[in-house]
C-alpha cells in the first residue's frame, strides 16, 4: 500500500452511459469509494471486464483497464495476474457474461484460486441485448426469449462458487452503499479469488427483480447482514435470528419459546467446511432472509503465488538459467 491518500475522484474517469436508475451507477460509486479506502495506487490496478452493460465499467475507471470479449474476462484476468502478480485485478462481469458464456472460466479461476477479485453484477437479465432471460432468471421467468416462461432452473452463483472450492464469497445490494464498500474492501483484503455477488436492478428489462431488498426498510426485514464472529440477527430491531435445526437452518424470534441471543448461531466466515456457509448463501424469501456481507473468507495458497514459488524453487535447483545454458543441457556433437 502506498503512503499517498487517495480519494474516490482519483479512480474516476469518463461519463457513465448506463440507463438512468441502473444499479451499475450505484455500484460504481461504491467501487470508487472502496478503492480509495483500500489505497492501491490507480496505476497498480487493472479492471478487466467481459461484455454486457456492467462490463462497460472499466471505461469509468482511472486505472488500467480492459473491456474484453463475452465471457472471457476470468481467463484474461488469470493470464494478466499470473504474468504480472504485482497488479491488483478486479474482474467485472454480469450474470450472463460470468455464468453462461463464461461459466467455465468462472469456475476454473475459482478452482485455481488466482488472486483476482470477481464482481458479479447479477440483475438476472441480458440487458445489452435487450431483455432475454439469463442463467440466474427464475424458472418460469417471462422475457422476450421466453414469452411463455422459462422451463429451466437458474444457477445460484454461490453454489457454483462453493462447488468450485471458492474461498471467498460475499454479497451486497448495489443500492446499499456502505455495506457494498465494506464487502469490496474485504474482497480486496482476501488473497485468492474473491467472488462478490452484487444484487443489481435493471430498470428497463427486469425492474424490481431485487425488490425484497431494494429499500433500507425492506433489507431490515428481508436481509441479514452477516459479520464474522457476530450472532446472526436481523429484523428492524434485531429481533430475529438464525438457529440450526437438523441439517438445516430456521428463523427464530428472540424471546419466543425461551430463545435468547446465546441460542443464535455465530457467523464463522473462516470455517474451512463450507456446509453452513452454503446454506446461508442459499437462503431466500419469503421464509428466510437473504444473506448479505462476507459469507465465506478462508485462506488458501493462491495460484499466481504458487506459480512464482515453483519457478523460484526450480530455479534454485537447476543449473541452467539462460538460453545458452539451456542449450548446453542437450546431447550435442561437434562438427569441425
Amino acid at each position, binding site marked *: 500500500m502506498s503512503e499517498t491518500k487517495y480519494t474516490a475522484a482519483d479512480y474516476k474517469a469518463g461519463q457513465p452511459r448506463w440507463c438512468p436508475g441502473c444499479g451499475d451507477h450505484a455500484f460504481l460509486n461504491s467501487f470508487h469509494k472502496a478503492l480509495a479506502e483500500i489505497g492501491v495506487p490507480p*496505476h497498480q490496478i487493472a479492471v478487466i471486464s467481459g461484455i454486457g452493460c456492467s462490463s462497460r465499467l472499466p471505461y469509468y475507471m482511472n486505472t488500467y483497464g480492459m473491456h*474484453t*470479449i463475452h465471457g472471457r474476462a476470468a481467463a484474461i484476468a*488469470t493470464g494478466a495476474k499470473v504474468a504480472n502478480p504485482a497488479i491488483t485485478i478486479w474482474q467485472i462481469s454480469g450474470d450472463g457474461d460470468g455464468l453462461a458464456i463464461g461459466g467455465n472460466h468462472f469456475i476454473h479461476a475459482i478452482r485455481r484460486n488466482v488472486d483476482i477479485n470477481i464482481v458479479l453484477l447479477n440483475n438476472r437479465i441480458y440487458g445489452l441485448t435487450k431483455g432475454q432471460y439469463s442463467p440466474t432468471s427464475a424458472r418460469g421467468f417471462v422475457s422476450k426469449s421466453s414469452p411463455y416462461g422459462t422451463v429451466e432452473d437458474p444457477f445460484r452463483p454461490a453454489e457454483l462458487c462453493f462447488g468450485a472450492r471458492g474461498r471467498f464469497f460475499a454479497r451486497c445490494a448495489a443500492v446499499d452503499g456502505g455495506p457494498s464498500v465494506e464487502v469490496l474492501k474485504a474482497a480486496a483484503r482476501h488473497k485468492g479469488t474473491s467472488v462478490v455477488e452484487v444484487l443489481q436492478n435493471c430498470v428497463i428489462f427486469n425492474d424490481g427483480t431485487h425488490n425484497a431488498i431494494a429499500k433500507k426498510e425492506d433489507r431490515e426485514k428481508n436481509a441479514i447482514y452477516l459479520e464474522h464472529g457476530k450472532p446472526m440477527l436481523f429484523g428492524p430491531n434485531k429481533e430475529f435470528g438464525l438457529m440450526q435445526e437438523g441439517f438445516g437452518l430456521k428463523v427464530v424470534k428472540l424471546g419466543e419459546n425461551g430463545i435468547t441471543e446465546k441460542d443464535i448461531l455465530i457467523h464463522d466466515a473462516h470455517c474451512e467446511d463450507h456446509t453452513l456457509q452454503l446454506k446461508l448463501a442459499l437462503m431466500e424469501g419469503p421464509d428466510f432472509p437473504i444473506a448479505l456481507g462476507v459469507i465465506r473468507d478462508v485462506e488458501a495458497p493462491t495460484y499466481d503465488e504458487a506459480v512464482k514459488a515453483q519457478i523460484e524453487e526450480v530455479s534454485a535447483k537447476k543449473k541452467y538459467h539462460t*538460453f545458452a545454458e539451456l542449450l548446453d543441457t542437450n546431447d550435442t556433437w561437434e562438427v569441425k
Partner: protein
Amino acid sequence: MAEDMKVKELDDVVVRFSGDSGDGMQLAGNMFSNISATEGNDISTFPDYPADIRAPQGSLTGVSGFQVHIGSGKVYTPGDKCDVLVAMNPAALKTQYKFCKSQSVIIIDTDSFTKRDLEKAQFQLENPFSELGIKNEVVEAAITSMCKECLKDSGLDNKTILRTKNMFALGLVCWLFHRDITVGEKLLREKFAKKPEIAEANIKVLHAGYGFGENTHASVSISYTVPSKEQKIPGRYMDINGNKATAYGLMAAAEKAGLELYLGSYPITPATDILHELAKHKSLGVKTVQCEDEIAGCASAVGASFAGALAATTTSGPGICLKSEAMNLAVITELPLVIIDVQRGGPSTGLPTKSEQTDLLQVLYGRNGESPMPVIAASSPTDCFDAAYTACKIALEHMTPVVLLTDAYIANGSAAWRLPNLNEYPAINPPYVTPDMAGKWTPFLRNPETGVRYWAKPGTEGFMHRIGGLEKSNETGAISTEPENHHLMTKLRAEKIAKIADCIPPLEIEGNPDADLLIVGFGGTYGHLHSAMDTLNAQGKKAALAHFRFINPLPKNTAEVLRRYKKIVVAEQNMGQLAGYLRMKVEGIHLHQFNQVKGQPFVVQELVEAFTKIMEE
C-alpha cells in the same frame, strides 16, 4: 528410378523401424538418428504413430513407425521409401511394406510371426511374405528369444526383458551400417540414469543385436556405409524436432526481448509437446498455464500480453477455431501475441496425428470483421526455431498477434541443428512508452512510420488507460462508432500489417534462376519440394523453388517473382489455399496446382512425375 536409387544408396540411406506402438520403435529410431548424426551424417526423421495410445497388441491399427534418413551430405526429407525396414510383427510388415523399395532389406522378429500373430494381422496364408508378394531379402532373427537368453541372469522380469527388443533391432541395424554403438550406450545410460539396471540390460541387448549381425553375417547383398562429407557449417549440433525447436525459439525471443514468457495452452495433438517442453524450463522463468480450454489458452495469453509479458498460445486447427475470438481481441487492442498452429488433418477432429497444410485460409481469414494478422510458416523441424523467434519479434515490435504455422510432420520430425548463438540474432525492441510521453500519450497514438502504437504496461505511473474489443477513436482510444473513424481505423490496422513487408526479406529463388518451371510452396513441404527440384535439375530440366515463409504480408518482390516465370506450380497439402491466395494478391498470374491431402508428407518421386508432366504440357 531404381538405377538412380542405387547411386544414392552410397550417399544416403533410409531406415524405417516399425512395430507395435508399445515396442519402442520411436526410441530405436531416435537413437539410430542420434548415433548417425554423431558420426557426421545429416539426418531427417519422421515418426508415423497411430492415434490410439495402445491399440490391441499385434493389430494393424496399433502399428507405430519411425523413419530415419541419414546422408553423407544434406538431407531434406525423411525419404520417400526405406532401404531397410524393421518389422517387429506381422501387422508392421503388412502395413509398412508399402514403404519398401524392391531392393529393401527387411528385418523381422521371427518369434513374433506365430500363427496367432498372423491372425491378429489378418493374414490368410501361413506365409505372410508370399501373401504380400514380398521378394525382398529378409533377415530373420529370433529377437524375442535372443533377448530372453541374453538377459536370463539379469533378474529382470519377463515384461521388462521383452521391452528391450527394440535395442536388439537397433544393434542389428547399427551393425548393418557400421555404426559406433558406444554412442548408443551413452544415450541409454542418460535415458535410464535413475534405473542403471535397465540401462545395462538395454546395453547388453544392443550389443547382442550387433553381435548377431556380425556372427551370422546376416545375409544382405548391399553393404551400407554412409561416410560423412565435411560440408556442414562447423559448430556444435544437436538433434531437434520441430516442437522443441518452436519452444526454444519462444524462450530465445523472450530472453532477447528481456521479457517473461507466458504460455496459455490446452492439450491438443500434435502441439502439446511445445507445452511439455516449456513447462520444464521454469529456471528460465517461463510461465505455462494449462488452461480449462482452448479459449482460455488464448484469452489468458491476451491478458498476459496486456500485463506486459511475451505471450503465446499453442494449438492445432480445432483449437484455432476456438481461439479466433480472442485472437481478434488482440487484433483490435493491438497487443503482441504469438499463436502457434501445429496443423493436422481436418476438418473437425479429422486426423489428429497426421499432417496437412489446411489451416492457411483459416488463420488468414477465419475471424469476423476486417482482421489483418501476420502469418508466417516454418519450413523444417530446425527452422521452427527461427520462425518462432521471428514471429515473436514481429508480434512485439509491431504490436500485433502473429500466427506461426507449423505442421505435424515438421513438429515431430527431427534433424541436426547447429546450436544458435543468440548474439547473432537480431535485437527485439518493443515500442514501450517512454517517460517523456507522459501527459501527451494516448493509447492509440501511432509511430508515424510504422503505424505501431506504443505499449504501456500496467504498473507504469502516468499511463493508465483502457482498451477493449469495441472500435475506438483513432489516437485517443475512446469508444467510437463514428463511420469515418471506423473506416480509418480499419485502414490503419491493415496498413500497419502491410508495412511489416518493409522488415522482411525478399522471396528467394533456389535452383535454376532461368527455370522453365517455378515450384511454389510454403511451410513444412520445403524439404520435399527442394528434393523434387534437385531431382529435376539433375535430370537436366530447369526448375526453381520459391518457398514462402511470410504469407501475410507477402514479401515485396512476390508479384515480380511470380510474373517472371512462364510456368508455375503451387504444391501444397491442401486443395489450393496458397494458390488461391496468390491469385487474389497478384492479378493475372496463371498457376498450376499440385494438391494432396493424405495426412502424409509428399513423396518426392510423385512430385517429380507431376512436375515433369506440367513441364511437358
